[in-house]
């Protein structure tokens, strides 16, 4: 089963169990990349108006009503309008009033000639707020695990999705090598290019560990991560699909504090994305990852 099919099945079961899913243009062509079941408003599939600023609040109200809403935002960049009540109400409700407000925010990233707002991941804006957890699953099992966590806990969760994950029907294991030169810590779709980079670098005699980062917040450096890092001669690099002045630097900071290794970051370039292909701002490419690794190990 692909990630898209997994999400669709999870959503269908949730709706048929009395839950709700809401968002804009859900029933439009494609049903959000095939991730939304072809159900109706009577089934709990709520089409919102195009008011991005109110949708998050309506989702919060549904959470207070006990509906455990799946709030679907088709482009992560739209979160700049949608985030306000998720992070200021749902995320703070337990601390403020002891009232749980579990919202499952599905936030979909993509890139490639879609301009300065809709491009790429924007999970960094959520990771800075207390009371919300942030996850970036890329495989079917990771998505199921994320959903099961949500249903067994009472916290709002921001799920940083990527459209390139939708056709994935396999898992992405970590790669640990003896005497690695460096450890890569990729996030979201950066994991796919990082996997390719590991293979290419291997051909040039550069050995890389690859430790996938799925839970962005709370980020707890595991013993497994730290062993991979400390066993690497040249430390590590966090590869993000958001700007570097976000969660990637936070994760790098936490990894460095917990180890004796330097951890660098590689993410979107510090400029707006244009529509023309040569002006786009894409996640680190295979070539950029290879270049960064070579720069860090000075080879």
């Amino acid at each position, binding site marked *: 089963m692909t990630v898209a099919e997994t999400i669709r099945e999870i959503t269908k079961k949730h709706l048929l169990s009395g839950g709700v899913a809401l968002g804009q243009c859900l029933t439009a062509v494609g049903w959000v990349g095939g991730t939304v079941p072809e159900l109706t408003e009577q089934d709990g599939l709520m089409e919102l108006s195009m008011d991005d*600023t109110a949708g998050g609040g309506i989702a919060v*109200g549904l959470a207070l*009503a006990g509906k455990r*809403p799946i709030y679907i935002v088709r482009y992560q960049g739209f979160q700049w309008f949608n985030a*306000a009540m998720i992070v200021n109400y749902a995320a703070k409700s337990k*601390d403020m*009033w002891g009232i749980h407000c579990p919202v499952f925010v599905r936030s979909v990233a993509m890139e490639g000639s879609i301009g300065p707002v809709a491009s790429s991941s924007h999970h960094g804006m959520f990771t800075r707020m207390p009371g919300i957890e942030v996850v970036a699953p890329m495989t079917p099992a990771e998505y199921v695990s994320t959903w099961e966590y949500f249903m067994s806990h009472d916290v709002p969760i921001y799920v940083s999705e990527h459209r390139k994950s939708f056709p994935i029907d396999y898992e992405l294991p970590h790669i640990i090598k003896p005497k690695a030169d460096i450890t890569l810590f990729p996030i979201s779709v950066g994991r796919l290019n990082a996997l390719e980079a590991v293979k290419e670098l291997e051909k040039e005699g550069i050995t890389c560990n690859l430790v996938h980062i799925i839970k962005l917040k709370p980020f707890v450096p595991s013993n497994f991560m730290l062993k991979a890092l400390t066993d690497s001669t040249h430390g590590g690099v966090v590869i993000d699909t958001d700007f570097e002045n976000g969660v990637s630097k936070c994760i790098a900071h936490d990894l460095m504090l917990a180890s004796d290794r330097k951890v660098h970051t590689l993410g979107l370039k510090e400029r707006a994305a244009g529509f023309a292909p040569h002006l786009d701002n894409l996640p680190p490419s295979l070539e950029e990852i290879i270049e960064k690794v070579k720069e860090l190990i000075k080879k």
Partner: protein
Amino acid sequence: MISGSLTTEEILEIFRKICLIRYFELNLKRVYDAGLMPRIPIYLSVGQETIAASLSMIYKGASLFGQHRGHGIYLAFGGNPAQLIDELLGLPTGCAGGMGGSASIQCPEIKMFGHDGLMGTQVPIGVGYAIGTGQTTITFMGDASAEEGYVLGAIGYAATKKAPILFVVCDNGLSILTKKDVRRNWNMADHAGFGMITMDMTDDPWEIIRIGKLFKDQLPALINIRTNRELWHAGTGRDGEPNEFNRFNVTKNDIAIAGLKIEADIIEKEIEASIEALWNQRLQLAGRL
């Protein structure tokens, strides 16, 4: 003028609630001005007590989403006054454990939800709650927060989905001190109803009762209630008498005309004394008096 459909007990119950809100807040002003409580921002509704008091008579059991000026809602709908005092004193026994202060109070017992501090967020959240539960919900807002884009968007969505919610705009014509006609050339009842039943009215409690009853079975609906708050937007300051009318005195006069002056005077004196005593008791328990 008091409607003949109200019983004596109902008239006096409304007045009792008005007095409860008024004397609770006048004591809060006394305590705040005397420096007997933490210097947190406080938001008083003295002068506009009739809105929550009247609606609480009609919408018993409704779920409530207020904004930062929520003491009147809390008290009118049955929140525990002692827990509200404790909240204002920052105590763990407060209705929000000290987290809410004046602006973010809650009361699960009366289904009153807290407010996060962003103007008007209670409106979309209340709409989502009304849709999710199917239960009658009231969301209160000021005439300033009514201008937030997400407030208007949420009202439109509630109208589209026929959510069981009453939108109440407490309209004192001011955003802090910026007058409404400087900010907009439209009004909520005429231009933000989105096809719902709406009414633009004053805070005459007897008229609020009449419209509240009329709208109760036709939700979603919106009432814009023009009111005169006596004290500042935040804090206890006062710029003089209310601009247009003093609703408390007008209401007392209505009750006197209805032949209930003696009963009303007794209620007012009793509540004035009991609330002052309650404040003093809580202050003593908190070691502040």
